[in-house]
């Protein structure tokens, strides 16, 4: 605690001061009755800028965008009742992707809790299963303990969302503050057990066909450098989960790109043959593993994770190591034999053969009027400083398969929850947190309508966001699955009424580019992507284009549909 001369402050003023002391400079939210004392205090803050979202879910995803780009805890604000209810999807999304978030929510006054008061909802109860932890604050004095603790919890170990629910009377309660708590940071994770590191090194050195499997934890831990070093030192063919893309540049010699449901044939076939799988900050999600009993059937497994409950959750590891993956990899590196001493020539040759025989097929890559071609044309206009966000659906998988992601935190996508509507507000949050960068959000016409109101926020903030809309007038991945697995009975997946997205965007004050109407798409893209400010880039695509290869849900990864 740091002593100061005593001040009499309201709970709301204390909360704002504590956010300032945590180093928060930007929050996203929407005011409403039960959070108005907080907003009144926030209006007096010289340090914190408030981004006024147009829907609380948008505010939640803007905070996610800030957190995903920076790795720091970000804050969103909502009022009680519908405000909180609207925020839930963004909180649940942050939980599944381990994004550090603190949500400050207004609650009805303590005397009204439990009476079905106006705009009352059980925030505490609703957020138990979708947060790391949650608080219902009982007094202004409690805020001094709860808010630093919320930040510590959000950032420590495996990151995640924390909710701080503050009744209106607590926000208005005046108390004398004589001491301020020290701003909190993450609690260090205990060092990994030495013996386990030794065992892991021995297993890697003894393996004939080892593979490295990187997950989102590598990005969260800041361990991409160590992961690539390990791969290079031991010449480990490397696969990444959707969340880890960019941890190793996807065009690195050792990279086999994304594994799983929409991974390349060579990637999933290589995993079939490996004799050692080194899972780093990955959680064996069903979209990555396919049918778990058939995943890496020949492999021993080393599983490294900061969260002990992930070890043995889905797949029993031969060796589980609890620890911060950066610390574990750093200790492991010197003990791993360099590939010159241990060439594994047969395995290198086999990987090369798989890559040349079963590469990712990207039909139309040279034609910007196809999905892969459009993604490539966008990438050709940008460098690695650009941030690439997506919504959820076919466009997301095409981008995951084909965009040359080359650095951690370049890639913002809703992995665990798969939330349509994620892209636009997350891209806005990213653009505000990293104003020097260009943020591209690939989206689909289904996803875009789920948070399109945030176009207003982007215009107001002048966010440098470029939405590339792949418009197939359908819920493309649903349409694809109905065609593949439901007897081609396309139902409720084709839109009969499609808005004129260009006019909609213009109405919000965005710049627009209709690629359908341009003679030279590459030149038009270059101009649109290099002019600052929010821009909608519209491209029609064929509804019958599919994301391939595809592993049917529940099937083994070796049983892929398509080339």
């Amino acid at each position, binding site marked *: 605690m740091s002593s100061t001369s005593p001040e009499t402050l309201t709970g709301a003023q204390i909360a704002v001061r504590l956010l300032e002391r945590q180093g928060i400079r930007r929050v996203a939210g929407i005011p409403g009755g039960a959070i108005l004392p907080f907003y009144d205090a926030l209006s007096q803050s010289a340090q914190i800028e408030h981004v006024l979202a147009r829907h609380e879910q948008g505010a939640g995803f803007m905070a996610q965008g800030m957190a995903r780009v920076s790795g720091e805890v970000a804050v969103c604000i909502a009022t009680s009742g519908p405000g909180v209810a609207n925020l839930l999807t963004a909180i649940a999304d942050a939980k599944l992707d381990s994004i550090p978030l603190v949500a400050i929510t207004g609650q009805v006054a303590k005397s009204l809790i439990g009476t079905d008061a106006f705009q009352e909802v059980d925030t*505490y109860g609703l957020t*138990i*299963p979708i947060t*790391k*932890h*949650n608080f*219902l604050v009982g007094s202004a004095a409690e805020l001094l303990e709860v808010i630093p603790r919320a930040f510590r919890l959000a950032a420590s170990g495996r990151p995640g969302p924390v909710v701080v629910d503050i009744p209106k009377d607590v926000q208005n309660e005046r108390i004398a503050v004589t001491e301020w708590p020290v701003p909190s940071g993450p609690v260090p994770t205990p060092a990994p057990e030495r013996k386990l590191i030794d065992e892991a090194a021995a297993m890697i050195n003894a393996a004939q066909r080892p593979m490295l499997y990187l997950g989102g934890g590598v990005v969260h831990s800041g361990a991409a450098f160590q992961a690539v070093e390990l791969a290079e030192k031991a010449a480990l063919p490397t696969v990444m989960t959707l969340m880890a893309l960019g941890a190793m540049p996807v065009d690195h010699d050792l990279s086999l790109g994304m594994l799983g449901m929409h991974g390349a044939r060579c990637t999933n076939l290589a995993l079939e043959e490996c004799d050692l799988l080194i899972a780093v900050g990955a959680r064996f999600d069903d979209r990555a593993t396919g049918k778990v009993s058939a995943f890496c059937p020949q492999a021993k497994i080393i599983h490294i994770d900061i969260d*002990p*409950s992930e070890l*043995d959750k889905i797949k029993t590891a031969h060796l589980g190591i609890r620890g911060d993956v950066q610390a574990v990899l750093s200790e492991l590196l010197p003990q791993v034999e360099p590939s010159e001493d241990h060439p594994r020539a047969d395995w290198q040759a086999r990987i090369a053969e798989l890559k040349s025989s079963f590469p990712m097929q990207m039909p139309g890559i040279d034609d910007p009027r196809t999905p892969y071609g459009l993604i490539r044309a966008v990438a050709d206009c940008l460098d690695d400083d650009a941030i690439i966000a997506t919504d959820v659906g076919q466009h997301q998988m095409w981008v995951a398969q084909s965009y040359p992601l080359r650095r951690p935190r370049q890639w913002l996508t809703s992995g665990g929850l798969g939330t349509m509507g994620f892209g636009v507000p997350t891209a806005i949050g990213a653009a505000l947190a990293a104003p020097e960068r260009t943020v591209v959000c690939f989206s689909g016409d289904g996803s875009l309508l789920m948070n399109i109101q945030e176009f207003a926020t982007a215009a107001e903030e002048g966010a440098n966001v470029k939405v590339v809309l792949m418009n197939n007038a359908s819920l493309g991945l649903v349409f694809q699955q109905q065609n593949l697995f439901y007897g081609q009975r396309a139902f409720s997946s084709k839109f009969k009424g499609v808005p004129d997205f260009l006019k909609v965007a213009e109405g919000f004050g965005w710049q627009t580019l209709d690629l359908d109407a341009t003679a030279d798409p590459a030149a038009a893209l270059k101009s649109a992507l290099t002019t600052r400010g929010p821009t909608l880039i519209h491209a029609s695509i064929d509804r019958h284009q599919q994301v391939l290869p595809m592993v049917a849900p529940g099937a083994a990864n070796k049983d892929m549909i398509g080339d």
Partner: protein
Amino acid sequence: MNNAHSKAVLELNVNNHPGVMSHVAGLFARRAFNVEGIVCLPVGDGRTSRIWLSVNEDVRLEQMIRQLEKLEDVLSVRRHGPAHAVFERLAEFFC
């Protein structure tokens, strides 16, 4: 207390404030894992409580314990065998 399933008894030390029981019960409920018996009383000065849970032995139990240990308000978790006396001694209140 005997039926087809073999039982385990879990002993949790937890913070004592509203909502802690919800956190604990919710972990089981959302995994469709039935809790057969619950006993909870404050300990010492009342800042912490002890929760006794009677649960069926299940392959998921180890994962449940790891999830319990992650809860911020759960201070410790111990696993006992079915022979633990706590629920047996309470049986007379459930005749």
